[in-house]
């Protein structure tokens, strides 16, 4: 029997998300290594004609053979259980041997439902595949500071793929995916955990941090809640976002939505300027996706400094104002 590798694809209002493209790229390697396997993808929820056309063309570029589309009145508002019902239906329709989703909060949540329903093991935050049969994966534990080799003997195996595990890339040969309008029944219980409304508030004001090209980081070295003036000025001058360590939010100096780390936001800027941050694992888990790291720290041996690309040794309260002044001079 031929088998399939199925990817739950997330979209924003216009297109397939970057993390989903990473997951599709990751899955393609698995398809190649499983002889005769087919590549399947699943789109769930309110998908309008424009989004559908764009997504299908992106999935063709990813070399997907079959696209399952789950549309249902009950999918108008998100609930993990109803999304999981769609995934389980697509897994059955495709006889999937492996089911993958991006390691986003929703991807992780939906896959946990899928694994519980199918009574199979789930590996979260996978970064690589070791052996294909039986499947052995390498996944991030301890906030990414340690890798676990994990064997998954159940079928289908359920995985989430860690952000930045691979660079998203097009397939060698694009495809013309077959589209399967997925038939599914939702139960009343699937809808109990649905989103009843979305509010804008400070609690979730992390979009700026997630998408920022420049992030100015601040840690214990800021010294107090009043120690952020220079850092905020630098943030403004560079059009970036301020991100802080857990110490800073724990002490109440800055709000939690600015926290970068394992239990905060994971950032992927072009440059991360980490000021007065020692670089504990908790923090490193959130900032390791930065292309370039510049550390400003009094301690030459701090992990943040030794693992950075560039460093300036000294007190941030002397260095940051000098950088601001120099920037203003050159920017005119």
């Amino acid at each position: 029997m031929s088998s399939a590798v199925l990817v739950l694809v997330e979209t924003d209002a216009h297109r397939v998300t970057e993390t989903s493209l990473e997951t599709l790229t990751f899955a393609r390697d698995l398809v190649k290594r499983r002889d005769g396997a087919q590549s399947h993808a699943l789109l769930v929820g309110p998908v309008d004609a424009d989004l559908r056309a764009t997504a299908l063309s992106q999935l063709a570029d990813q070399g997907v053979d079959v696209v399952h589309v789950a549309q249902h009145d009950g999918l108008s508002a998100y609930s993990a259980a109803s999304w999981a019902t769609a995934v389980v239906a697509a897994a059955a329709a495709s006889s999937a041997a492996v089911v993958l989703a991006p390691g986003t909060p929703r991807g992780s949540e939906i896959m946990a439902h899928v694994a519980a329903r199918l009574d199979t093991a789930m590996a979260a935050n996978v970064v690589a595949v070791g052996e294909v049969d039986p499947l052995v994966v390498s996944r991030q534990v301890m906030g990414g500071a340690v890798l676990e080799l994990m064997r998954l003997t159940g079928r289908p195996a359920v995985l989430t793929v860690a952000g930045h595990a691979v660079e998203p890339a097009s397939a060698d040969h694009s495809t013309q995916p077959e589209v399967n309008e997925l038939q599914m029944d939702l139960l009343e219980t699937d809808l109990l955990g649905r989103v009843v409304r979305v509010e804008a508030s400070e609690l979730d004001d992390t979009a700026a941090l997630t998408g920022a090209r420049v992030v100015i980081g601040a840690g214990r070295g800021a010294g107090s809640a009043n120690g952020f003036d220079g850092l905020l000025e630098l943030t403004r001058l560079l059009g970036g976002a301020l991100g802080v360590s857990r110490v800073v939010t724990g002490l109440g100096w800055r709000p939690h939505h600015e926290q970068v780390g394992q239990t905060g936001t994971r950032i992927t800027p072009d440059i991360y300027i980490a000021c007065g941050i020692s670089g504990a694992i908790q923090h490193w888990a959130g900032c390791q996706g930065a292309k370039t790291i510049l550390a400003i720290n009094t301690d030459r041996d701090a992990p943040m400094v030794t693992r950075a690309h560039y460093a300036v040794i000294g007190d941030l309260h002397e260095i940051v104002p000098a950088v601001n002044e120099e920037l203003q001079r050159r920017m005119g």
Partner: protein
Amino acid sequence: MVNVMVCIKRVPETSGQILLSDDAQSIDARHVGYTLSSHEECAVELAIQIAKATDGESTVLTVGSQDAVEQVRNALAVGCSAAVLVEADPAAYGPADVAQAIAQVVRAREAAGTSYDVILVGNDAADTGDFQVGVRLAYALGRPVLTGISTVEMSGDTAIAKGKGPEGTEVFEIPLPVVIAIQEGGIEPRYPSIPGRMKAKRIPIDTVSSPIEPAGTGRVRLELPPAQPSVVEVLGEGPEAAPAVVELLYRLGVVTK
């Protein structure tokens, strides 16, 4: 009255350098110590607040060795009113096993007349990061579940829960009994006082042996990522380095003006 159970896990501290055991099956945390995941610190605080607001009980539960009594006592010291230790070798328990073990204890207690309207867990453990114990527990008990939740308030037989979504704060209204996985960010955990610690010492910890045969974790071994040699280029010391910093920002294309 809402009875709350909060499930916690003893995990190695993640602030220090990480060492593996000789057989690469576990983290050697002898020199860094143990703690609770920060998500679970928030879950403990929420459990206490919900129980207090509704005149209910807040029971802390862990699946682990006797060593985990340290973390259980801390939860009692900040205000949990009862405690259960499900004695088991945590290394042999995968997330599905932990969920089954908790579910069996909950069912046994419900059969004996004590029910838990709200069961709180951490969203993901700081060590194994499995992201699934709460969901599996909910399925084992036939209850609805929410994950990634930062605040919870009770409104009669409904929990009003809020968490961060892709487009803003998502609000859920979910009927009890329910399982909720808590994420740091909406609530400030309190720290134990001395009287709190004294009181905690007098609360008995109900120790039960694990009622299940674990299926295991699937762990082959742990590995430390290859050590990256330091490639740091020191641009200078003190404020005199400012021009070099700005030059770098221009070179990287971060400043274009």
